[in-house]
């Protein structure tokens, strides 16, 4: 009997191991996040590192965010128009593009783009610093790596990504506007009026809240994986890959939770 259960037990163990490992990793990331928050308000503050992080996370992400948003907004307009035709509801294109971009696609796509561009770069940079003993050098120079590297980047992500989401929302809506007015025959003035009339403050606020949370997650996970990377080039590669995958999944999970909390009722 016991021998008969052995394969089932082995299969369950094989299934359980990665689940337990993932939960343990999530726990370590949570502790790392709490430690980062604990350092944010305590000096010393590294203004130059923060300014550099603002530039890297915010300003230099604008092109990728803008291009992603404009193409998504345009495609969304085409899809809604084509789908709406099936039940004579083509006129709702401005409203659906606006709510779709602001509530969901804007924050999620910007979050994922930040995970691809910023999380990967942070993880690779810090992992390389670890491999080349630069993190040890920081410690010997009486500088806490978490304060010097993690705090400025996480703070920049928390503050910049909501702005990027706001800009992405506007560019996405403009993408829909350009397609709707240029290709689908919508009147420009009424398109803008419908968009503005339909959107509510809560939609915009929810978008910015999501942006702040996604920015925090994306930068924190990049730092976490960088600081905990393995040795050599393989370690740096593994840290980068793991950081992007984890940040993307956590952003999508956080999006579901935030949507449930903000709009569930």
């Amino acid at each position, binding site marked *: 009997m016991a021998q008969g259960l052995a394969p089932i037990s082995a299969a369950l163990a094989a299934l359980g191991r990665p689940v337990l490992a993932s939960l343990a990793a999530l726990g370590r990331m949570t502790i790392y996040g709490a430690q980062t928050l604990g350092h944010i308000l305590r000096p*010393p503050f*590294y203004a130059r590192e923060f300014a*550099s992080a603002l530039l890297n996370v915010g300003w230099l992400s604008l092109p990728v965010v803008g291009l992603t948003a404009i193409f998504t907004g345009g495609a969304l307009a085409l899809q809604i128009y084509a789908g709406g035709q099936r039940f004579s509801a083509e006129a709702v294109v401005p409203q659906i593009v606006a709510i779709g971009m602001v509530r969901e696609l804007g924050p999620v796509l910007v979050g994922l783009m930040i995970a691809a561009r910023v999380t990967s770069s942070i993880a690779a940079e810090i992992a390389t610093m670890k491999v*080349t*003993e*630069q993190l040890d*050098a920081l410690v*010997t*120079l*009486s500088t806490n790596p978490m304060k010097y590297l993690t705090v400025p980047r996480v703070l920049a992500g928390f503050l910049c990504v909501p702005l990027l989401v706001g800009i992405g929302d506007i560019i996405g809506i403009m993408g829909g506007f350009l397609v709707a007015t240029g290709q689908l025959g919508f009147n420009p003035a009424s398109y803008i009026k419908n968009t503005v009339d339909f959107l509510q403050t809560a939609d915009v606020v929810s978008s910015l809240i999501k942006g702040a949370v996604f920015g925090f997650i994306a930068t924190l996970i990049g730092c976490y994986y960088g600081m905990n990377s393995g040795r050599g080039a393989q370690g740096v590669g593994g840290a980068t890959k793991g950081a992007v995958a984890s940040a993307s999944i956590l952003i999508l999970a956080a999006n579901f939770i935030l949507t449930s909390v903000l709009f569930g009722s």
Partner: protein
Amino acid sequence: MITLSGVHKTFGPNAVLRGVDLTIARGTSMVVIGGSGTGKSVLLKSILGLVSPDKGLISLDGQDVRKAEREAFLARFGMLFQGGALFDSLKVWENVAFRLMRGPLARPKDQAREIAIEKLRRVGLKPSVADLVPAELSGGMQKRVGLARAIAAEPEIIFFDEPTTGLDPIMSGVINALIREIVVEMGATAMTITHDMSSVRAIADNVAMLHGGVIQWTGPVADMDAATDPYLQQFIHGRSDGPIESVR
């Protein structure tokens, strides 16, 4: 004085340090030799608290280093890392003056830059190097910048981790001579880990050989050649036959 008593450190199944006892007297230059993977870097990092020993005591001037106030403790040290460990995103002078621009030793930027340029001159680099970034420097120049950074705040104790690894013999000689000069000039306590015997002879007052996780032999550098320890003799003469297994 730095004292290590019965220091143990294990990584997974691998016991790297198995009871290291070592004393480094104030103002002397100790060189720790030993084969690759024998735990020399772990020993050095244990003193700095970058690695926590599993067992044993490390003290600095009689005080347990684990109980020392961290910032004040680290302010007494300078360190030259094996690969230089220069910060890629900072200019050369900012690397050298890193400690002088932050924390308790912080001073105005112009003053920090002046000191950095003076230290760069001390290690034989022109002031024009100051505004380059580390990636623009050769390996030898990076080592010199690392050395300038290690001495920038004029520490009491300086650690050198494989200072000549990856350098040609001439540049190795230059770095060895610089280290010796600077240590004597500053009256600093120095600890160097290396397996380069020319470094040992150029830098050391005392030598300790780490093998099998313990100090196999220790004594003044002048006594090294006459010592009868077979491990030491095999190592310093680079012989493949002897008690040290060549395949690990």
